[in-house]
């Protein structure tokens, strides 16, 4: 059996045949007859140049297929075929999150804790993916590198700002980018990119600047984390991406977000919070953050977080090694806030996001399950329903 592949298609019901995509395509993969504009699966390189120039949104359609639809078939269509049920191997995603097998596999692994196929929130903006890849990376310049953890902490978590200059790099909150560390691995092959979730909103770390920030923890012997944590202002970095098409922020102002994280898992939530602050600064009572770390000194962004007004975002911290206090983990705090959490589980606008180390998954899942049971709800059913409607998201590593 052939391995399923991704195919780029154009929705004939929405396309108006302006041929702007055809004129933009650098490899001549797009053509038309009197009825339809179609993409040649033999030629398309997924460079995505055609996506932003389309005036209709009809261009951004993808199907996983065993056999690509031929040009002749596409010319005949009055409407786009449904995605056929195609079985992928256990734990393997269909690759739509990244359009790049290696990156898609990493994301599929990170999202596996959701217990099924993740979907983007219905009102999320449409993400761009894989604009830059290993063969054609973007080059960014380091604008700054700041230590986030206190001097006394033995953890070294850093806030790194990358500037893309004049290069378009549209990235949404919750998406990740790949960093290619220089040098080669033990086998003499160039290193593959490592994925980092951006911690800045779509319009820039500094508003209306073409820059993004990352939140990176130095790992002992970590090839890429040490490279990133040691970057100096002015250094040039090779970047791929953006990646990720499901762990995204809903645009709906009514959406109520419960964000649960530990350590650098806070990166996407910093981006979510900043986006909300910039877009809907007066919206109250729709954000809840549960954030775990060993001590306040280990908690990235502890200072700036405390300044976010409580009525804009309800903040709950869980410290597991704070002197003079009992050990507290995020699941303990979730239980303590059980009523609030149960309310969100019932709310059709409720969204849950979990981000951090793999180890947190189990405890959080147990806590949510207990809270649901206590409220007379079936957690497994709610979770599947929420995931299916793009309201339950897990990204752990």
């Amino acid at each position: 059996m052939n391995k399923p592949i991704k195919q780029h298609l154009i929705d004939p019901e929405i396309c108006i045949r302006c041929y702007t995509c055809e004129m933009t395509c650098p490899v001549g993969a797009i053509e038309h007859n009197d009825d339809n504009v179609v993409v040649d699966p033999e030629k398309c390189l997924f460079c995505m140049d055609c996506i932003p120039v389309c005036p209709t949104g009809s261009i951004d359609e993808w199907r996983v297929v065993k056999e690509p639809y031929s040009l002749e078939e596409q010319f005949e269509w009055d409407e786009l075929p449904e995605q056929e049920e195609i079985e992928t191997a256990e734990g393997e995603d269909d690759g739509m999150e990244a359009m790049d097998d290696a990156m898609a596999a990493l994301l599929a692994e990170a999202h596996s804790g959701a217990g099924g196929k993740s979907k983007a929130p219905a009102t999320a903006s449409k993400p761009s993916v894989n604009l830059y890849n290993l063969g054609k990376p973007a080059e960014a310049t380091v604008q700054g590198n700041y230590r986030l953890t206190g001097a006394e902490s033995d953890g070294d978590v850093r806030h790194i700002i990358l500037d893309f200059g004049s290069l378009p790099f549209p990235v949404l909150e919750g998406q990740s980018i790949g960093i290619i560390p220089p040098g080669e691995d033990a086998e003499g092959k160039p290193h593959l990119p490592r994925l980092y979730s951006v911690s800045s909103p779509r319009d820039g770390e500094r508003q209306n600047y073409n820059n993004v920030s990352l939140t990176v923890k130095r790992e002992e012997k970590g090839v890429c984390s040490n490279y990133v944590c040691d970057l100096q202002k002015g250094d040039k970095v090779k970047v791929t991406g953006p990646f990720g098409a499901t762990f995204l922020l809903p645009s709906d102002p009514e959406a109520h977000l419960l964000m649960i994280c530990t350590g650098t898992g806070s990166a996407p939530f910093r981006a979510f919070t900043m986006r909300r602050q910039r877009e809907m600064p007066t919206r109250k009572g729709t954000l809840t953050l549960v954030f775990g770390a060993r001590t306040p000194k280990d908690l990235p962004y502890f200072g700036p977080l405390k300044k976010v007004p409580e009525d804009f975002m309800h903040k709950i911290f869980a410290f597991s090694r704070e002197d003079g206090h009992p050990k507290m983990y995020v699941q303990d705090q979730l239980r303590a806030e059980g009523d609030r959490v149960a309310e969100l589980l019932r709310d059709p606008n409720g969204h849950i996001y979990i981000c951090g180390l793999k180890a947190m998954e189990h405890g959080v899942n147990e806590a949510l399950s207990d809270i649901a049971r206590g409220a007379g709800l079936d957690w497994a059913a709610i979770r599947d329903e929420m995931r299916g409607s793009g309201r339950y998201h897990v990204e752990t590593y």
Partner: protein
Amino acid sequence: MLDLINVSYDTQIPNNVGLSEDKKVLKALEKWHPGYINWWNDLIPQNFQESMVYLRTAVSVDPKGWAKFDYVKMPEYRWGVLLAPAVEDRKIPMGEHFGEPAWQEVPGEYRNMLKRLIVIQGDTEPGSVEQQRFLGLTAPSLYDMRNLFQVNVEEGRHLWAMVYLLQKYFGRDGREEADDLLIRSSGSEEAPRMLGAFNEETPDWLSFFMFTYFTDRDGKMQLESLAQSGFDPLSRTCRFMLTEEAHHMFVGETGVGRTIQATVEAMNKAGITDPYDIDKIRDLGVIDLPTIQKKLNLHYTLSLDLFGQEVSTNAANAFNSGVKGRYQEHRIDDDHMLKDATYPVWDMVDGKLVRHEVPALTAINMRLRDDYINDAAGGVKRWNKIIEKAGVEFEMKLPHESFHRQIGVFAGKPFDPDGNLLSQEEFDAKAPEWLPTKADGDFIQSLMKPVTEPGKFASWIAPPKVGIDNKPGDFEYVKLHMA
């Protein structure tokens, strides 16, 4: 080094042409700028000028990041001068200079011809904004209002594009022509716009959609031909304009489509199967299909007139000199010089319509019009799919190109929409079945009531399938200023 991809904001005028280092042109443009802003401010009703509109602004000519969407007050829109990136070693793609390097400066012998083409193109851009100036007051939704304003600000930018070429390459006369573009005005007695179709009022939204579908499509064909020009700055300007123009086609095609959708849905709901049961259908608050057909007939035929005479020595000269090409010149497989080629054009022989071969060089207009007709037919097919899907028996048709024409071989001759020549009396008797009457106009006008609640639409038009910039259905595309 100059950054020719991204827009520079170091002057008042965003640009990717290195304006800050081109003092003379910068000064000329800055002098022209206040007049343009006055023109804009006098045009659009004040409360819309103050409203926040969710617009896209071109910020780069790189396809990956070419535009940004955000709320903008229209007078603060960053109209700029943007040219598609230069193609290295570009050659003149047609005419007697075929294969020679493209001109970076205006060749003296073609100066007047080029200037005239640029002025005509430039004149249509503000003309359409003037025609549509009051439509905001009756927008059927905030979504449609936003699309109208998007079209308007981009037509404004296209005026900038032409003015830049005039001021940069045509010296003193260029500057005078640029000033005149702000003096002429659509429908004016003393100084009307240059082309007839741009002096007709756009009285209602169906007219606007028909206009953006049919008349802007003529603009698209003209831009496509000018994008082939041997004069490289004109070619690059037009190539970038086409990216924006595509949205205008979109507004027209989906606007008419959504109008039809609302009609057939209402008919089905009310159990009306006869599309000619006009009074009953109109009572549902939608526009009956025969009336939509009449509007189509009118706008299509007015737009055909924009292509000029079928046989034209001006067009032949423009092609031969390498100033203006054919639609998709690069895809045509011939010598690109039309040395011995012929092309069939319409003619009247003994009162009968015939097509006969003439030298292809003289038939450039006819060929472009044929390409246009083919291009325009695509949307009509889609509209008919909507009708067919709803199970209504009716078919929209492009009338024969001899019908209702004012320019060319058919001018003033009483042909019916199937291309049969009638007597003037017969034609006059049937005309109300083919072209919108005053009563039709009054009825459409009666439906033009503004709807300004986010996510809501007037009865006569269906919501779009996809939001702009993937926004949800109830997105507030325009935050209206309440005086």
